[in-house]
């Protein structure tokens, strides 16, 4: 058993282009894993993480080939195996847990049967033994009512439950190595916390080794003992998680860690310039040179090797950098933050947008609603109910909540895309028509939207020039030349060059596309920009850059943001005020500093506890179950069904009162503030207090 579980040696894979050139994807990757080890693999998208993970199953994408090196699993070279021998290893001894369980499970097959299939195939189980093992596996991943659950189809389960089923399937063959490819990406924070907890527990109880591929530093810190950083198909740093987190040695690792927004720092994360090279965009020397502050002539000519740093630690610490000693000596730990310039508290803020008692529903209207009423069906509760909020000129108001909390619904109502059933929307003292088509052009100009996914929000058939031309043509009396010049200037403002004018969205990276979307919104010179999860589809490094850009533009242009996000750390970095939403109802609203300190609304508390700062060994507190509620309760508190601090039937029957914890800080809960204050602890690290102090002074 002393033998290493996995030895990857000098692995280089690639694909052949039509011109016959071989383009390397993974480059000279060497990595070892011991039995029972949990290794996190991080890097931006396009760095080869998934490609590497799949080679551990002896799999290459169609057209891919091994150019050099080997992947040895328990001493056996996977790429030297015959297909049937490989099939024996896959799924049984090495299993993969995919990112999207919903697309990995067969939609027409019952969940129990899908797990049974794996057991029959790899372990030859049958009969009652098989049935028992299926139930045992589902119990192991903490799924409720397993007897009933085995007969369900995938579409009848929630995202978190599906991911648990996928994990149970991965465990079915009792594998020695689990490859997890972004297993919690796309899940709500509380669900994610539960899944990570489960993975840790499985690791402890079964001793299965795990390769955890993710761009989420927080998730990796909570599950893994060791961290490997991949850049441009190479491992650039490899070491114990505590060491790497505390003092990263490679400039790329520093950049990545620095770009992660933290709950405990009230500042913008530091963006890393540039983007990773695409395969084939080959250069001599170190691949990180164009983005590196430490690069010199040596780096441009000689490719550094992965070498031990000889630093003390529980695990060997390797780095691939010529100048790592200089990097360490620079003391630049990658965690310095720029504080966002907040709005001037001295001046009485001028209200810009007022939503008063807004109700929104997706329920049937007209004839269909009449029929439903005639049949005696109760009218479903409003998706968004009695929503009242004010946004001031130049401020950033964040809407936070899990999926289904009605954040985007509110943005759509403000934009006039989804008329509210009841309530009033006031913009700059004027009543705003509920339908966008009946609003004056000036209103269209003043309210702009930036969407989550620039792939969908930019017309793929248009050039950047056409995209930026649209708002200019609509709102301003400019000639062709003027509009073109303005478009170029806008691109400069979002740190792109006018060379991008002729490009199509398909010819740009995700970050560049989102910059164009930002430029399109600002072309209108808006008063209010609705930012709907604008960074959640982006890599952390790109997210940091977009946040920085938005903060900068706001400082220059004085536009107000309605910033919708599920990520409390991102919100902390950019928002002035925060409203926490659950099921379309406001739980808590207040200045950003107050939201992140007790007293919390129990829902805010649950969210904060579920997503601690990325730090080795950080454990999330699971205060509430990870259930997704289909619709809000008819009366009482919106959070009644999941609340960890429920006090009784009053929660079910009465709408909670608005309690003022501080000026402008409202908590809607039946529990008296004093009681909340006494029983709650500060969930973000103590350093936050100091940093926050700086933030206040800066203003």
């Amino acid at each position: 058993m002393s033998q290493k579980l996995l030895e990857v040696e000098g692995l280089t894979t690639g694909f052949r282009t039509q011109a016959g050139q071989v383009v390397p994807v993974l480059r000279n990757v060497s990595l070892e894993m011991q039995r029972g080890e949990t290794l996190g693999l991080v890097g931006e998208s396009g760095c080869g993480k998934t490609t590497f993970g799949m080679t551990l199953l002896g799999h290459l994408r169609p057209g891919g080939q091994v150019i050099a090196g080997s992947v040895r699993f328990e001493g056996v070279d996977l790429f030297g195996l015959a297909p049937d021998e490989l099939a024996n290893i896959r799924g049984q001894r090495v299993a993969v847990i995919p990112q999207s369980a919903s697309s990995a499970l067969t939609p027409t097959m019952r969940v129990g049967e899908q797990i049974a299939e794996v057991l029959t195939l790899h372990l030859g189980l049958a009969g009652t033994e098989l049935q028992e093992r299926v139930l045992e596996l589902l119990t192991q991943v903490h799924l409720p009512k397993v007897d009933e659950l085995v007969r369900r189809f995938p579409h009848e389960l929630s995202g978190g439950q599906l991911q648990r089923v996928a994990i149970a399937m991965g465990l079915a063959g009792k594998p020695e190595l689990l490859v997890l490819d972004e297993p919690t990406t796309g899940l709500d924070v509380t669900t994610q916390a539960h899944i990570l907890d489960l993975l840790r527990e499985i690791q402890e109880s079964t001793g299965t080794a795990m390769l955890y591929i993710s761009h989420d530093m927080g998730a990796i810190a909570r599950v893994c003992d060791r961290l490997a950083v991949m850049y441009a198909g190479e491992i650039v740093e490899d070491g114990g998680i505590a060491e790497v987190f505390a003092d990263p040695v490679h400039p790329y690792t520093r950049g990545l860690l620095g770009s992660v927004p933290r709950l405990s720092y009230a500042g913008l994360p530091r963006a890393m310039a540039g983007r990773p090279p695409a395969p084939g965009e080959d250069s001599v020397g170190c691949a990180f040179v164009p983005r590196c502050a430490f690069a010199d002539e040596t780096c441009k000519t000689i490719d550094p090797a992965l070498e031990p740093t000889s630093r003390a630690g529980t695990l060997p610490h390797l780095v691939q950098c010529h100048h790592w000693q200089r990097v360490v000596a620079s003391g630049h730990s990658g965690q310095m933050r720029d504080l966002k310039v907040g709005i001037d508290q001295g001046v009485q803020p001028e209200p810009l947008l007022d939503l008063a008692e807004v109700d929104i529903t997706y329920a049937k209207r007209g004839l269909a609603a009449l029929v439903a009423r005639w049949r005696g069906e109760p009218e479903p509760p409003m998706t968004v109910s009695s929503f009242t909020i004010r946004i001031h000129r130049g401020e950033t108001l964040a809407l936070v909540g899990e999926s289904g909390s009605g954040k985007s619904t509110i943005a759509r109502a403000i934009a006039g895309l989804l008329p509210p059933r009841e309530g009033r929307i006031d913009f700059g003292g004027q009543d705003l028509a509920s339908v966008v088509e009946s609003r004056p052009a000036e209103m269209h100009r003043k309210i702009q939207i930036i969407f989550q996914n620039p792939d969908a929000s930019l017309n793929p058939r248009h050039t950047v020039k056409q995209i930026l031309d649209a708002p200019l043509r609509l709102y301003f009396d400019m000639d062709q030349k003027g509009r073109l010049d303005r478009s170029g200037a806008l691109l400069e403002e979002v740190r792109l060059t006018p060379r991008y004018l002729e490009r199509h969205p398909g010819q740009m990276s995700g970050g560049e596309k989102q910059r164009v979307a930002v430029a399109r919104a600002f072309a209108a010179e808006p008063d209010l920009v609705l930012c709907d999860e604008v960074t959640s589809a982006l890599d952390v490094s790109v997210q940091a850059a977009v946040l920085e850009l938005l903060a900068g533009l706001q400082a220059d242009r004085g536009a107000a943001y309605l910033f919708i996000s599920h990520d409390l750390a991102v919100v902390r970095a950019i928002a002035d005020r925060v409203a926490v939403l659950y099921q379309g109802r406001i739980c808590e609203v207040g200045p950003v500093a107050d939201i992140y300190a007790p007293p919390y609304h129990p829902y805010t508390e649950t969210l904060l506890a579920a997503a601690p700062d990325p730090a080795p060994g950080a454990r999330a507190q699971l205060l509430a179950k990870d259930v997704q509620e289909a619709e809000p309760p008819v009366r009482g508190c919106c959070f009644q069904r999941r609340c960890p601090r429920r006090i009784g039937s009053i929660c079910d029957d009465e709408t909670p009162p608005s309690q003022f914890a501080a000026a402008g800080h409202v908590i809607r809960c039946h529990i008296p503030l004093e009681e909340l204050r006494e029983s709650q602890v500060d969930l973000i690290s103590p350093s936050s207090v100091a940093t926050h102090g700086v933030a206040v002074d800066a203003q």
Partner: protein
Amino acid sequence: MSVVPTRLAQSLGWFAQVWRSLRRSRQGTIGLVIVIVHMFIAVASPYIVPYAHHDIDGKNRLAAPSADHPFGTDSFGRDLFTRVLLGGRAAIGVALLAAAIAVLWGGLLGILLAFIGGRVDEVVMRLVDALLAIPGLLVVLLIVVALGTGFSVLILTLGYAYGVSTVRVARGAALSFVASDFITAARARGERKTNIVLRELIPNLLDVLLVEYVMRASWALTAISSLSYLGFGIAPPTPDWGRMVFENQVMLAVSPWGTLFPVFALASLIIGINLAGDALSKAIGLDRSQEAPT
């Protein structure tokens, strides 16, 4: 004005890409060659045929291919080579125009329905369903019988019949874009509806409509040939492949040439269009296999 060269360059780039992809597929290349040869013949045949299509060589009736008559002659002694070369012109012309009309009105209506949605969409689509329930050729026959055969009647009738099914295809393709964020963005921006359809929606559907046009043209060609065969299509004396098959089939046992050559000409063109169309849709990224001819 500078928008025009950009758009041109952009669409040229797109066409170049599609062209490369077409050429890469062997079937596509073969299909394309066949179609180009046919189109060349259709355009150039009046200048290259050795005889007039109504010239009668009384001494050589039902002759086998020879140096004078490369494809032989029919029962009147007319040169089959001449008639086969000329026989596609009318049908191809009618098919291309009919397909153009079909894609124009059907495509536009389909896109508008997808964009408008709601009750209008519901009602019109049920009507389209009802029309589609009647076999296409039957409708065409009825109209032609009622209004008489003439080029304009044929073109309009086929243009109508194929347009009905194009409505479905265009609506389906447009639906996937109508809900997308860039359309929502345009609405929120306050763009006029015509602008949203013309600037945002239609550019994304040109590829679908192009493939649709090619396939409708191929089916229209089959339909016209069938009509001509039945005597309701291209009227004599204009030479036409379908009609030639009808005229010469009784002599099949004596002299098969009059039937074989027009059939070969028609079949090769339709196979060519289909090969090229399949490769085109693949090059553009559509799959035509789910779409059935009507």
